[in-house]
């Protein structure tokens, strides 16, 4: 369980109440919790996915969405390989704010970060306020991936995380991302003991080599 080829750091950003924590919970625990506590500061989750033949550990940072918290959230961009930028398809304002989120992401993260734009709550079709096409075209114009998800029904949640991982993996294969550089948001897994970048990875290393 503990062994993996790479560790990718993700950050989930977007306005308050768009479903960031629910997406994380659905992805890591396969459940939806309609009544959950507000995220104050940051939350955190991890899961291993398989891309190609490789096991990749995703380490996901879920941030507070209220504007005040941006000053704190900015410190988490550093060293993120992937960002999930989330809006709520039933709330126009959360789509309108994407540009400022993107500006932060471009400014504070590394240049090669893979960004997935996510229109969440697609189970609420009747309340839709942002069309799919608008989401797609915003993504196209800004060089982002795009997907609509429902953290409630789990639709496309897995895909959003895995597709992002696949793109980061492609970038590694193509040599665009340097895995030895910490700021890339990628670390080698403990399966390669000689290359392990963990300073004190004893427990995982032991379990990892078999």
């Amino acid at each position, binding site marked *: 369980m503990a062994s993996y080829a790479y560790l990718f750091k993700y950050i989930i950003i977007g306005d308050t109440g768009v479903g960031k924590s629910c997406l994380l919970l659905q992805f890591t625990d396969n459940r939806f919790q309609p009544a*959950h506590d507000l995220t104050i500061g940051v939350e955190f989750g991890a899961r291993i996915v398989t891309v190609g033949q490789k096991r990749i550990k995703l*380490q996901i940072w879920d941030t507070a969405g209220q504007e*005040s918290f941006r*000053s*704190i959230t900015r410190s988490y961009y550093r060293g993120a390989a992937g960002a999930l930028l989330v809006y709520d398809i039933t709330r126009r304002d959360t789509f309108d704010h994407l540009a400022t989120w993107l500006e932060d992401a471009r400014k504070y993260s590394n240049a090669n970060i893979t960004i997935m734009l996510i229109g969440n709550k697609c189970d609420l079709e009747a309340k839709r306020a942002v069309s799919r096409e608008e989401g797609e075209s915003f993504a196209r114009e800004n060089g982002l991936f795009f997907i609509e998800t429902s953290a409630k029904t789990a639709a496309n949640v897995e895909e959003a995380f895995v597709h992002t991982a696949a793109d980061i993996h492609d970038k590694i294969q193509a040599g665009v991302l340097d895995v030895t550089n910490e700021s890339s948001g990628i670390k080698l897994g403990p399966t390669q003991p000689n290359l392990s970048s963990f300073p004190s990875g004893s427990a995982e290393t032991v379990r990892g080599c078999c």
Partner: protein
Amino acid sequence: TPVHFPTPNNQARKMVIYGIPTTLRPRVWQFFAEEAKIRQSGFYEDLLNRERIPIFDVIERDIPRCYPDHQLFCDNQSEGQRQLFDILKAYAHYNPEVGYCQGMGRLVGVFLMQHMSAEDSFWLLAATIRQYLPQYYVPTLTQVRIDSAVFEKLLQEHNRKLANHFAVNDITPLMYVTSWFMTLFTMTLPWASVLRVWDWFYLKGTKILFRIGLAILDCISDHLLTECPTNSEILQYLLHIPKDKLAPEHLFAAANRVRIKTHHIDRLSRQVTLHGVPARGELSTSESRSPQKSSKRRVFQRVFSP
């Protein structure tokens, strides 16, 4: 039953050690926060009648996410949710510099759980922010960031081994103290510990945030050092500390071993502000964090004397 103590200082100390009787707790908090200084009769009603402003949307969305497991607030038709909404709306009008910031609802929820009326809860929120946390919930979260930097220094002095372990694994205090401090530990500690920490906080001020913060880390330090080799495990644990590790007997034993002086905290605050960590000019860090004790002790004596 009110207990007579020989000197005000002893009263205060004993209160922290033995706990305040439940029914007196709101009154004691009100007195320490000097709520009477700012309370204006009829003003809360007046604030409730003011116009809707954009921040209400944010408050509204947060209400169901404030103590969703507590019986007072779990139902969206409940009196508890309505009061929470009213109080936060009123505060947004009362103090436009702060408006509303996530985390404030956790304070209000505790007041309501102590069976305080909405109006009393509102004034205690206002007094608490004014007296202890004036720059906490402002849009720049200035004091949260300063205190986080101060906490990092205190941790280095207090538990160097753990501080190094964090540093090597890129764990900074902002990752965990943000929720500790902004919710006054309500998301982290078991209830039996929360209320006693609050008693202490109202008596001694924000110094208690640091002291309890360091005590929490002391309670879990061994686990973090031996069982959490990378930042994944560390964060996972830090953000979800098993409640039994922080039961009053463990937490307060640890807190009693933490010694920090207010003037030291003040000095560190000035240092981190000077180095530009979160500087924003109008900070009140040059003032001491210690609430003016003399007048409070007198009030306290009045409350508790037979």
